[in-house]
């Protein structure tokens, strides 16, 4: 880690609490129990400037999606999902929660991915459903049909799109991995389930012919994207694995954990053989976010305003 820059506040302890855009923004979440004090943290890599983003209420995930009209910032929360411009200066679209929470449950949205073939943005929900949104052009977002799982499941933890499988892949808090067939204008169909793949999935990413699922207790599961057969299990960290990000074009998977370590793994596209490219202690803190950008990687830690690069 060669340098560090300063965010306006400390990052909250959330999974994958750092997102980066293709044009040089990174964003993180600062939640707060005090009304009006939760906010997004924005940093422009080129200028080195940091600023507060919009207020958030119990945000659950943050992600930049690379749509055909440019990157957008998607923030999910207990309020629903907000889609902002890249610098979070304007709200583009809002997807509300579909129903109210009960006395012993919380409703929220979590995770988002982009389906380039249909130009859909897909949002995960606490009901275990996914919600496609048509994002054909800026200012023309249209809420589509909430899609139900084929069997009872737990809250969505993360989503990705797998080009090889031509499907959206979701992972759920009960360890399920589910495949969803994409539809232009009908609910997505949950076509396959791998039950109890792991304990508490944190991230799912597409790695060409493979899928990689990062599990909270510290492991990464590599599956064949077509058959969903388990190919490898990597014990990546000695403590909780808190974030993962990938470069699908070169088969790279970067993970950070509460053991203070950043690991760069390479997964062979054909056989799924795993090698370790780089491993380093970033800082003596609970790492909770990692993002890749042109000049390298950025890492954030809980309760720290420093963005390590």
């Amino acid at each position: 880690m060669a340098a560090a820059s300063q965010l306006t506040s400390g990052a909250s302890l959330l999974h994958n609490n750092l997102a980066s855009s293709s044009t040089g923004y990174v964003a993180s979440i600062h939640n707060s129990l005090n009304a009006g004090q939760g906010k997004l943290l924005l940093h422009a890599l080129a200028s080195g400037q940091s600023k507060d983003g919009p207020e958030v209420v119990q945000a659950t995930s943050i992600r930049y999606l690379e749509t055909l009209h440019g990157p957008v910032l998607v923030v999910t929360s207990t309020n629903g999902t907000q889609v902002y411009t890249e610098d979070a200066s304007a709200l583009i679209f809002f997807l509300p929660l579909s129903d109210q929470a009960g006395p012993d449950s919380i409703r929220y949205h979590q995770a988002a991915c982009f389906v380039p073939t249909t130009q859909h943005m897909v949002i995960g929900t606490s009901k275990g459903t996914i919600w496609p949104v048509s994002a054909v052009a800026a200012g023309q977002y249209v809420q589509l049909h909430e899609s139900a799982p084929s069997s009872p499941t737990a809250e969505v933890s993360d989503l990705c799109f797998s080009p090889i499988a031509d499907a959206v892949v979701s992972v759920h808090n009960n360890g399920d991995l589910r495949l969803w067939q994409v539809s232009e204008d009908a609910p997505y169909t949950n076509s396959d389930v791998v039950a109890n793949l792991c304990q508490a999935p944190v991230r799912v990413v597409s790695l060409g012919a493979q899928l990689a699922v990062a599990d909270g207790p510290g492991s990464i599961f590599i599956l064949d994207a077509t058959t969903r057969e388990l190919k490898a299990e990597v014990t990546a960290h000695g403590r909780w694995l808190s974030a993962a990000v990938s470069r699908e074009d070169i088969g790279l998977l970067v993970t950070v954990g509460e053991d203070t370590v950043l690991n760069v793994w390479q997964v062979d596209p054909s056989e799924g053989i795993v090698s370790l490219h780089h491993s380093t202690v970033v800082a003596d803190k609970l790492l909770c976010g990692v993002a890749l950008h042109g000049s390298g990687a950025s890492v954030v830690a809980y309760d720290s305003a420093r963005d390590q690069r």
Partner: protein
Amino acid sequence: MAAGALMTMPVLIVNMGGEMVYILAQRLQAQQIPSSKGQKVLCDVVRTMYYPRFIEELFKPQEIYSLQSTRQIFDRLAHSSIMRLNESSMGKLFDLMIMGFKLQLMSVSPREIIDVTNNHLEELRRLAGDGEGVSSLVEECVTQVRQAYGQMGLADLCNMRHCLATFVQDCKVKVSLFLHEGTQKSDGAFAMPSFGTLQEGALQPGTVRYFSGGQEVRREVLSTVTGNSWLPATGQRTTLGSNIYDKERRPPSSSASAPSEVQASATNTGPPAPPAPPPSPIEVAKTAAAVGELNMLASLIGGGHASTETFKLENLFGHDMFTKEGPGTSGAQVIQIDGAAAGGEHRGALDSIRDELEVPAPPPPPPEEGDDLLDLMDNA
């Protein structure tokens, strides 16, 4: 099963309450208060904290309280015996509680938070003894913890931990004990280790297992930067949540390990990481740091120099003590603590306190509207 984020309050109150009792117990012991009298004080606090109706409400699914509201709860708890703390000393006590809990939260896995909670309960049972049915009250809470969290999924426990982390976020009060241990840095942030003991069933970081047809066919170990710094699981419960203010640093009875080294107390479990510093100077520094940190509280809990506006050394429970308090307090036998009064020479005052600690509890303050848990504490 209630979402993990709606079951944060029991963990928060039990763990922070445990820290509070540890601190109070240490001061009572340091001032050589007779054990029977000290027990009475601790019993009163613990009995209020584990008042059945309060516990029943605590374990209902609800959103986490704010820092300010939680402070009010502990204000009431701290004043449930004959002790009174002014704003400044209560603030310091609360800071110590928060930082102790924050370190525990950051040092453990989501599932181990429940172990920390159980460690606090076990230690409280030992400290408070069995006077006035306190033990049974604590035991009831142990049962509630088992029922509420025993079957909770790992993701829910993680959500709960994230919510608690938001609660203690930005709290960076420097604590001498932690600074001397090396677990806290000069900016108030805790230093997380890159080593420790693995969770049950976990393999060495860097291990890659290959599968075919659902069966493991090959295994290798890649060299991560700290792969060799992690010890295999021992099956022992974490010792975090035990009484760090206890000079002997005795862990809970369920832990089979020897008293932990300072560094290991900040990590998950297991033996300390190399290299270990020379024990004697550190032990002296630790004790001195802990005593130094708590002397402020001690001087406030004790009588201190007489102030015509608060109390008189020769008659700490006299009528004149409460002239500023107005109606309702005259004649109430309560130790009034004034943070502005000079402290330090409190031993003589405490000697007279010893004989007068068995006094009726003061009348409860009026309940605040909307504060359900606070209302229930008034009825304890």
